Every structure is written in C-alpha cells, then in structure tokens.
C-alpha cells in the first residue's frame, strides 16, 4: 500500500468516525440542544470526507450551508420553542422492536446497493481548477435546475417576509 493510499485511508477513517459519532450523539441525546450539536459534528465529518475526495468546493459549501446556516436555524428553532429545553423524557417507547427491525433492513439494503451496484467511475482525474467549470456548467448545461432553484428561493423569501409581518 503506497503512502498516498495509506494517508487517504487514515483521513477517511478519522472523518468517518467523526461523522458517525456526531450522528450517534444526535439520535441518542435527550437534551435537544446537545442533539443539535451532535448533528453539527456529523456535518463537519461529512465535509471532511468531501475534502478527502478532493471535492473541495462541495466540502466548503457543506460547511457554509449546513454548519453555518441550517444548524443556526435548528438552534434558533430549539431555543424559541418553549418546553423543548426540558428533558424529553425517556428515549424509548413500546415500538422499539419494530423500529430496530426496520432499521436493520434499511441498513442491509443500503449496504447491498453501495457494495454491489455498478457505479459509473470516470476514468480521467480532474486536476484543473473546478470552480470555473462548475460555474459554466450551472449556466449552460444545468440552466433549468438553476433557474428553478432561484424561483424556489424567491418564493421562500417572500413567504418569510409575509409571515414575519403579521
């Protein structure tokens, strides 16, 4: 195993462990704010995996949007909802056997898809600056999704202003 491969495996395991630890904290904590902080750790782990895959733009945008905006939104929502700050009680109810079975099934299906599907791997390694290429593609090949997303953003902004005015 070359040094390159060894180092990228080490990086992947560290970042993957961080994402898994964050996800475990997010689903098992009873205090909702601590769960939100675990979610932030999971987002940072996923961003680290993007950096290991040399998709730096996607990694940075993951940090900017997920940690910088969506997590702040979640924290505000938790803060401003009265009664959520007290403990949520026990984390289980009587349906946990069925839930465990369905989760195990989902895990098996996802692993089968990830390991046995024929993924389309590109043969060329991209070494040039990716950001201009992404920009050009957004405005030529993927113009329709781009405009649809901006329309969605406009609708969300107008909706937020209308709700906040009342």
């Amino acid at each position, binding site marked *: 195993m070359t040094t390159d491969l060894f180092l990228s495996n080490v990086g992947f395991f560290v970042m993957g462990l961080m994402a898994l630890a964050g996800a475990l904290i997010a689903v098992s904590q009873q205090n909702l704010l*601590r769960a939100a902080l675990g979610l932030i750790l999971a987002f940072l782990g996923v961003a680290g995996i993007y950096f290991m895959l040399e998709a730096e733009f996607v990694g940075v945008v993951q*940090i900017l949007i997920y*940690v910088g905006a969506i*997590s702040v939104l979640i*924290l505000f929502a938790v803060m401003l909802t009265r009664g959520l700050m007290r403990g949520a009680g026990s984390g289980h109810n009587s349906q946990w056997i069925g839930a465990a079975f369905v989760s195990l099934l989902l895990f098996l299906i996802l692993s089968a898809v990830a390991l046995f599907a024929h993924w389309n791997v590109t043969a060329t390694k991209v070494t040039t600056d990716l950001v201009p290429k992404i920009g050009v593609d957004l405005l030529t090949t993927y113009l329709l999704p781009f405009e649809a997303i901006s329309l969605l953003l406009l609708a969300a902004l107008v909706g937020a202003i209308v709700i906040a005015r009342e």
Partner: protein
Amino acid sequence: MDILNNLFPNLYDWLAGALHALLAGLNLVKDAENAIVATIMALVVVVVLLLWLVLMVLAMIWFERKTAARVQDRVGPNRVGPWGLLQPIADTIKMLIKEDIIPTNADRLVHTLAPIVTAAPAVLAFAVIPWGKGMFPVDLNIGLLWIVAIGSIGTIGIFMAGYGSNNKFSLLGGMRAVAQMVSYEVPQVLTIVVIALLAGSLSLNKIVDAQGGMGGFGWYILAFPVGPIAFVIYYISALAEVNRTPFDLPEGESEIVAGHHTEYSGLKWGMFYVGEYFNFFLVCCVAVTLFLGGWQGPILPPYVWFIVKVYALVLLGMWIRMTWPRFRVDHLMAFAWKVLVPIALVNIILASLFVTYALPALKQMGLF
C-alpha cells in the same frame, strides 16, 4: 534585497532540506520519507503561525489601550514596562490565575466547549492568507470561500455560550449576537463576490497577484466606482461580524451586562477576549488581501508591506471604536438589510459591467 524578500521561504527550504538529509540515513521508501518531512514541516509552520498570531494579539491589546487613552486625552498604561509594553503579559497572567466558575444549573459540557468553538475557526482561517511573496501556509483554490465558511462556524460557539450559561441575559445576548452576525454575513459575501469578479479567481494568491499592476499599486480599492464602495461595505460588515463597536450591542456593559460571556471567568473569558482580537485581525488581513493589494508594494520587503497595511486598518477600526456610539438593535438589523444589501447588489451589477467593458481597455493601457 532579494535575500530579505525571500527570507522566510528560504528558511523553510533550508529546514526541509536538513530534515531530508537527516532521514536519508534511515533508507525509507521515497514516498514515506516525503510524507514524514511534509508532516514535520506542516507542524513547524502551524507552530510558527500560532506563535506569531499570539504575538500579534498581544501587540494589538497594547495598541488598543494606548490608542484609546490618547483619543480620550490621557496616557494609558505606562507603569508595567517601558511605555506599558508588558501590560498585556500582566493581563494574561492575571487571567490565567483566576478561578474557573461554572454556574450551578448550567450545562457543563456546552459551557466549557463554547469558548473553544468561538476562537478556533478564526485560527483555522489564517491558513490561507498570503503573508508575503511565497509565504502562504496553504494555497486553496477556493481560499475566499474557505474564509467565509469558517467564519460562519463562529456563530455556533456564541449560541453555545448564550445557552450554556443558564442566565437570561446570556441567552438574550447570545441570540442577538447570532442574529447580528448572520445578518451581516450577507453584505460581506456580496462584496467578496465583487472581488472574485475583478480577479477572476477565488484563490487568495491569484487575487494578490492580480493587484500587481501600476508598480505594485494596482489595488482593487482604486477600481472606481466599484472598489471603494465594496471596501466600505466590506469593512462595515466585517466590524459587525466581529462584534466591535459601534456594533457591540451583544456585549456592551450598559446594555446587557456582558451578553453571552457574562458567566465566564479566567481562561475561558480570555479565550473569548483573544478570540475577538483574532477575528478582528483576520478581518483586517482579509480586507488587506482583497482590497489593498496584500503584500504588493515597491521598495520594502513584501511581508513588511503586509503588516503595515494590516495595522493601518487595525488603527482605523480602533479609531472608529473610540469615537462612535453604539447602534440600537433594531437600527442594526435595518441598516444591514435595508441599506447595505441593496447597495452591495447594485455594486455587483456595476462590477459585472466594469469587468465586461472597462477592464479589457484598462488592461491594454497597462493598469490592472
């Protein structure tokens, strides 16, 4: 003159060569030897950068107290060393020996982690700044976006501080601070888009290289009318991002006790204090890199030019702090959304027109 200009890159190369010579005797695989030398050199760069930043912050603390004193027609600290130069060290020692208090019903883990989450992103963002010719720790080709993204992590730390203190004033101050920081990120990023348009790249090294025309004075702040407007909007939103007066409502003492760092003492409060200076220094470094040409300049070595320009902006920020009163919280938000964002959007349109029509002509004339 060339020796002085390339002093630090030459030191780096000499050290890397010495490490290679040291490890050559062990007969490792070529890849492994390169990886080990790269790791050790990266650690050396990180340690040197951290020590330099701490030295800069101590110098800024002294500078701020002396400037505040002179503006207020008094002398400032002058007992602890010659001209009070050892005062920040005395402050650090006092801060380190204070008792560490955690409020009774506070969430201990969140309360302890908050100062770290607030101060760490500022240090992370210094990795991409070009300190001189060839003196950049990392050359990310999305360097600009990295600084914006890392800056947005700091809001989480302030939230954690506000919640983890079990104190109504902390919670309110923390939420106000987060609302302010999130609102002022928008004009900040919109002005950074103008610089990306003018330079054609997001890499900070390419942006500094692109400002080399006119004998080292082809700075983007001189690109009328787009440059000065962008610089003013960037500087104002950056001051609001780092919670400096006149935007320090979340931490003003007459407003809300001390906002999100009311319940912190000792080294944790020190991390907030130092973190604020780290952030302010970072914002001035970024403004110098984007608008004032980074390390470009005639006769003097590049790193000297950089430090001089950064301290000029730091002096401007401190001057503003000493002379202007605070914003009220509703005025703060209205100013960001109703004044800065429209001007920044119009500025982007002007910049696109500038780049399409004026810039090729200016390039032919040899400017920019």
